[in-house]
């Protein structure tokens, strides 16, 4: 009897979690409806963000989000693969890998707002000097600065993904290659990397999802401009940073609805990215461990 109640309560808790997610999605849709109705569905993707006029074109922010996250991803791939190989192949045991792993853990634990603070005082002046050197408007803040800080922030995440995948490569495959006289370099580049390719891609996608949702460091370093970004060196805005800036003082409920609309777009974006990434990873795990 008690067992039945117990099992039911467990199932109930699981159901509650599903309900929670459903409630979140419904809330996002319901509360953004006024804004979508006001401007029409197609206008959501226009570049005109003017809350006072009931215009909630999200294109500048979708672009800002995609650009910064994508650049961050590109910049992080060589580092995350390198570190995954470092830990997975070259230095598997001993003090060096545990030191490096602790460092990566630490990097992952630093809060976003401290990244932003540091970026504001250290990275931005450096960027300004670089921009002056190239004769570009030395804003210091901007899309590229935000992308760089994002790179540093997602590296720990993409390393753990890549490492997990590289460790999944079956040992007999590697040993077969070694016994055929291959060097470590060849085994890595010709066996391990191609084998874990789709896994690394999946891990990359999941890191992309993380980057897309980052708020604080981005809002402090991106320059907060609501028009379509004209260059990587200039200011922009992401979905998350606009919400952070404008939510607490949205002047009318329609404005709030417009910001919830951005939250909805952000949610859908991360939803799709995570879904695809997890699906690839799951398929890979099944292939390697039948």
């Amino acid at each position, binding site marked *: 009897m008690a067992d039945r109640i117990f099992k039911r309560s*467990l*199932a109930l808790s*699981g159901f509650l979690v599903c309900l*929670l997610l459903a409630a979140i999605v419904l809330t996002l849709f319901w509360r953004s409806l006024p804004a979508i109705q006001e401007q029409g569905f197609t206008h959501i993707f226009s570049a005109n963000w003017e809350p006072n006029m009931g215009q909630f074109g999200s294109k500048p922010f979708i672009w800002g989000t995609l650009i910064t996250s994508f650049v961050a991803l590109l910049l992080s791939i060589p580092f995350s693969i390198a570190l995954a190989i470092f830990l997975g192949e070259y230095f598997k045991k001993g003090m060096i890998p545990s030191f490096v792993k602790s460092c990566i853990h630490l990097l992952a634990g*630093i809060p976003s707002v*401290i990244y932003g603070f540091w970026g504001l005082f250290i990275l931005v002046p450096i960027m300004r000097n670089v921009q002056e050197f190239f004769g570009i408007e030395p804003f210091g803040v901007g899309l590229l600065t935000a992308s760089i800080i994002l790179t540093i922030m997602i590296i720990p995440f993409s390393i753990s993904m890549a490492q997990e995948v590289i460790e999944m490569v079956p040992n007999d495959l590697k040993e077969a290659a070694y016994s055929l006289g291959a060097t470590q370099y060849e085994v890595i580049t010709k066996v391990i990397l191609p084998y874990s390719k789709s896994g690394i891609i999946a891990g990359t996608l999941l890191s992309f999802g993380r980057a897309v949702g980052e708020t604080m460091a981005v809002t402090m370093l991106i320059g907060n401009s609501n028009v379509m970004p004209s260059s990587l060196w200039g200011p922009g805005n992401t979905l998350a940073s606009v919400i952070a800036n404008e939510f607490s003082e949205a002047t009318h409920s329609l404005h709030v609805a417009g910001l919830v609309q951005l939250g909805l777009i952000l949610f859908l974006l991360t939803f799709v990215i995570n879904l695809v990434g997890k699906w690839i990873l799951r398929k890979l795990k099944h292939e390697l461990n039948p």
Partner: protein
Amino acid sequence: MIQKTSLETLLIKNYLFKGLIVFLSLLMLLPLLFILFFVLKNGISQLSWAFLSELPKPVGDTGGGVLNAWVGSLLLLATTSVLSVPLGIWVGIYLSEARNSKLAFCTRFCVDLLQGIPSIVMGIIAYIWVVVPSGHFSAFSGSVALSLLMIPLIVTATEETLKLIPNTLKEASLALGVPYWKTVLKVLVPTGFNGILTGILLSLSRIAGETAPLLFTAFGSPFLETSIFKPVQSLPLLIFNYATSPYEDWQRIGWGASCLLILSILGFNILAKVVKRS
């Protein structure tokens, strides 16, 4: 002859590649050192008893501390734990026990999705669910937002820990006639206690640094608050406001608060490691 040169090139490539990997790896560690160095250098001089025990002063007055911020952070963490840990553990138990049911599959899917939702979206949700109907900002609404972020973390930690426990333990307990619910709650969960506690500590260290969901829920306050039904200040919120201000005094306090926050997170992590090993 041809064999020898190609072997040489192969060996050179081998070493060059290894060198490249090591170089890139060390390069990645540089920003970490950079950041920690600056936070410690600028912040550690700020840490004093006065800093920890005083309230912030109005703009223009020097001195003041971050008492309300770290007490607020603790209040938020405590309330968040109360809201999310029991539910998280329960769902974690469910997922590790009922592995094949459809509801379990759906739950796992939902937990995965919840984990991927950006923290600012959770802030919006908490604003709509708690702040608007209650009519005021509060630590409670901030905790709701943080709980939504913490629940998936606890679920995953619990599920992973319990999955590692060998099945033989459960089977032995059941074979001895212990009812199922007692087996789970009084045998399995205590066995996995360390792992679950580690998971809780690591989640707390993650949540301690969250700012975005608190911007329009906990809202911030210049006063020391101990009530969860009032707006409350937290360390990350204070850092955000002070870092972007023009006042050098505030910026100094911001570095001090950053130092305090990082040391606390470090503390959580070390504690988690200690628990894991014991």
